[in-house]
């Protein structure tokens, strides 16, 4: 029999298909109704079994709600709740079959309900077990992006074309970029392996390349090795993989550069105070790192105060308050130290080095007795996460904040040193102590103020460091030698030198870490500094002219 595909035939087929689809939809709504108000337990069991077998995406959220025991009734309509509460014990609601949407009020805000307003629908375990077989598919429609990603990866190795179709449907409504990337990767990989000609395969290789998931280079490489069609396609895949890897390396380099920048800014923040104090008073303050530790603990105490005494759990406020508080507390303790110990040691750098080392031992032990060995400060909500420049390059907000803070502090210090009367006096005392005293500058007072500022800057650095690390009593020691290296390389008391060498040392540390291991990077830097000092024994920016020594 000869069938001619006239328009009439096509119309007929279309009608038939529509009818079939309609039947499926109808039966799904019947089963859903049976499930919610079963006339008998066996009816409900049958309804769930049928729904699981039909695999209609629109019913998936409903089935998942059953599977997760989160099916509720609100005004006789089936709803489900978010995985986490969105307020004080209230949840956002999602309607279930036939429409799967977030419930909103008239002004477009999500509606919040307490659990008590909802009527829980209890489905026995035996019925729920019927869904075990399609559990991974159900997750495709989860409200939780992580679960969806998991579901996509679970579909990776299924050659099943109906699963592919489901995947495609799910991807069409995917909103999360990460999940979408993973899902597309799985889909394209499956299609690539099922491709029937070279042109198609190449098109899918291109899609995978454009999608660029973490897995893409590995995927393309293994495809290139298997050599499905001919050498040409294989080479093409290998080329694409190589180009992806190259781009990834490039981004990695930017990431390294960024970490170097952030390490450098921490070093600058610490070294700034160190450098000013040494330049002005000839004091090597080995306890400088401990003022950083004090700043960090002040931040920790501020957090405790805010959460426990004031009852403000939000992390943003305490951190904003902690910035000035840590500056003042560390500065005040620095002033105390200056009054008690340091003022006897002006212009005796080596002696001050030993005495302040003693002070640092005392401070560390005090902190250990007071706080124990390990405490951590919560990162403010504002600074969690990062700026996603591209899928493979994320710049964390906390590090960006540290860089910005350093920038601000450097500018403030610059303004203080070069644009204010105090700064003028500080620079005068730094240049020539006796002469400044003769001209009526109270050198002792200036020194004390400088010490306050220097210690305060260290405290601020400590506050910033709580964003990236733990608070431990001997945290200052990790940075002190490095920051002294910054001072030495930059030239004592030189703002520009401190900034340049701080950035340089931070940057080189991270770059060398990428090539060698962290430790060897450090050794290299040291060797480099020693060689550098052959040419610039007085740092990057030495004083002009010759100053007689002794």
């Amino acid at each position, binding site marked *: 029999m000869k069938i001619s595909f006239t328009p009439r035939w096509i119309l007929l087929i279309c009608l038939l298909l529509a009818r079939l689809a309609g039947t499926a939809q109808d039966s799904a709504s019947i089963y859903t109704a049976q499930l919610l108000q079963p006339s008998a337990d066996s009816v409900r069991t049958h309804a769930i079994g049928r729904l699981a077998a039909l695999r209609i995406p629109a019913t998936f959220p409903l089935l998942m709600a059953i599977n997760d025991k989160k099916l509720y009734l609100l005004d006789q309509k089936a709803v489900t709740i978010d995985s986490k509460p969105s307020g004080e014990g209230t949840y956002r609601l999602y309607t279930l079959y036939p429409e799967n949407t977030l419930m909103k009020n008239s002004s477009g805000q999500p509606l919040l309900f307490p659990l008590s307003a909802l009527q829980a629908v209890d489905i026995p375990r035996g019925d729920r077990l019927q869904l075990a077989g399609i559990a991974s598919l159900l997750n495709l429609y989860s409200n939780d992006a992580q679960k969806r990603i998991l579901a996509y990866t679970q579909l990776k190795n299924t050659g099943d074309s109906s699963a592919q179709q489901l995947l495609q449907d799910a991807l069409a409504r995917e909103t999360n970029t990460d999940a979408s990337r993973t899902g597309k990767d799985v889909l394209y990989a499956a299609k690539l392996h099922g491709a029937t000609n070279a042109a198609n395969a190449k098109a899918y290789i291109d899609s995978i390349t454009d999608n660029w998931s973490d897995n893409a280079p590995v995927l393309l490489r293994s495809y290139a090795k298997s050599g499905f069609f001919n050498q040409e396609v294989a080479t093409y895949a290998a080329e694409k993989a190589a180009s992806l890897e190259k781009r990834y390396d490039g981004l990695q380099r930017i990431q390294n550069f960024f970490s170097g920048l952030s390490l450098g800014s921490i070093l600058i923040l610490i070294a700034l105070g160190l450098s000013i104090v*040494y330049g002005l008073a000839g004091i*090597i303050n*080995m306890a400088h790192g401990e003022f950083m530790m004090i700043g960090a603990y002040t931040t920790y105490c501020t957090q405790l105060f805010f959460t426990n005494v004031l009852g403000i759990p939000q992390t943003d406020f305490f951190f904003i308050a902690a910035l000035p508080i840590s500056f003042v507390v560390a500065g005040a303790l620095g002033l105390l130290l200056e009054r008690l*110990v340091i003022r*006897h*040691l002006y212009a005796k*750098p*080596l*002696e*001050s*080095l*030993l*005495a302040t*080392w*003693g*002070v*640092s*031992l*005392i401070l*560390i*032990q005090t902190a250990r*007795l007071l706080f124990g060995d390990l405490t951590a400060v919560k990162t403010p909500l504002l600074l969690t996460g990062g700026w996603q420049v591209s899928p493979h390059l994320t710049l964390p907000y906390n590090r960006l904040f540290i860089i910005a803070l350093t920038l601000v502090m450097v500018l403030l210090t610059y303004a203080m040193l070069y644009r204010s009367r105090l700064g003028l006096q500080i620079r005068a005392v730094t240049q020539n102590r006796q002469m400044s005293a003769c001209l009526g500058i109270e050198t002792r007072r200036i020194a004390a103020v400088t010490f306050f500022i220097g210690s305060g800057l260290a405290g601020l650095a400590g506050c910033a460091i709580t964003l990236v690390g733990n608070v431990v009593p001997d945290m200052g*020691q990790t940075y*002190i*030698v490095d920051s*002294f*290296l910054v*001072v*030495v390389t930059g030239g004592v008391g030189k703002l520009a030198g401190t900034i340049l060498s701080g950035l340089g040392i931070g940057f080189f540390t991270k770059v060398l870490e990428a090539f060698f*291991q962290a*430790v*060897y990077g*450090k*050794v290299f830097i*040291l060797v480099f*500094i*020693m*060689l550098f*000092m*052959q*040419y610039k*024994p007085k740092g990057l920016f030495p004083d002009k002219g010759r100053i*007689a*020594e*002794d």
Partner: protein
Amino acid sequence: MKTKNNPLYYILFIAIFAILLPAGYMSGLISVNTISVWGRYFCFAIAALGIDLIWGYTGILSMCQAFFFCLGSYGIAMHLLLKKTMATGAVLPDFMAWNKIETLPLFWQPFQSFGWTLLLCLLVPALIAFAAGFVLFRSRIKGVYMAIITQALTLAMWLLFLRNETNLGGTNGLTDFKTLLGYDLSSSSVKLGLYMISFTMLCAAYFGCYRITHSKFGKVLQAIRDSESRISYAAYKVVDYKLAIFVVAALLAAVGGMLYLPQTGIITPGRMDVKASVEMVMWVALGGRGNLKGAVIGALLVNFLYSVCTSLFPDSWLFILGFLFVITVLYFDKGFMGLANSIKQRFSTGSFKTSQTPL
């Protein structure tokens, strides 16, 4: 300041440590552990003499003496470990087998012979000191710069020694030795022997340093300390002098380390961290720098205090040490010896006068 040629102190010192202590042990009054502990202190004192030479007499604050000390210790430790490994029939020390290393690393090879070990223990620190000193002194790095750079050097080396890849035992260091040249290290007589050797070496080092400081060479060193530019205007090659004394100090530290190891039975990178290296300098500062007796007494005193305090009040040792640092620097610039001298002067002249020697 110097109680010149007053033999009473020396006789007292020798009487206590060479006769009284061993005699106490023989008669059973003093345990062998006490003997061994003092033997260790002598090793520290030897290193302290080196620090006094370089810092007290020449004015160069070197913070890497702890590193040289450890180099000596590690050298001997490698030898002992290889001997022990051979005795048990294994090819490699345990920790290397754990790190999945098949053959003995090349730099471990020479340590199989005791002669080579002794030579290398001295040669390696000397060479490193020479190289570092050459670079640093040539570019006229001094004072605080010198202190910071040598400190950074120690820090970098400490980090290196912490790694497993350097094949030096990592954080755990080298330990569990059995014999030295066939003598059982755990036996009491060997411990007493090591104590006596350390004591003899301390005396020898002291008199060596005494000769150095009272020679013309020593006078130049002190001149460098007091005014480096003036002595260089007088056509002395400051760099050569500094380099020589830096190497001597490194050697003394290494000798101390070599003797230290068989008496403690363990060496870890912890001996050369930032804290340890500053502490070594502090022995000399507390005892009295620019004074050889001060260095010896400072090393013995601080370590003795340490063992007493950590057993009596473990939490407050750091407080005590910290306060000692601060108070010494603020009020007793010449350390313990300076204090003793000024008290003596006060009794002899009736007026309190601090000593006038420039420092």
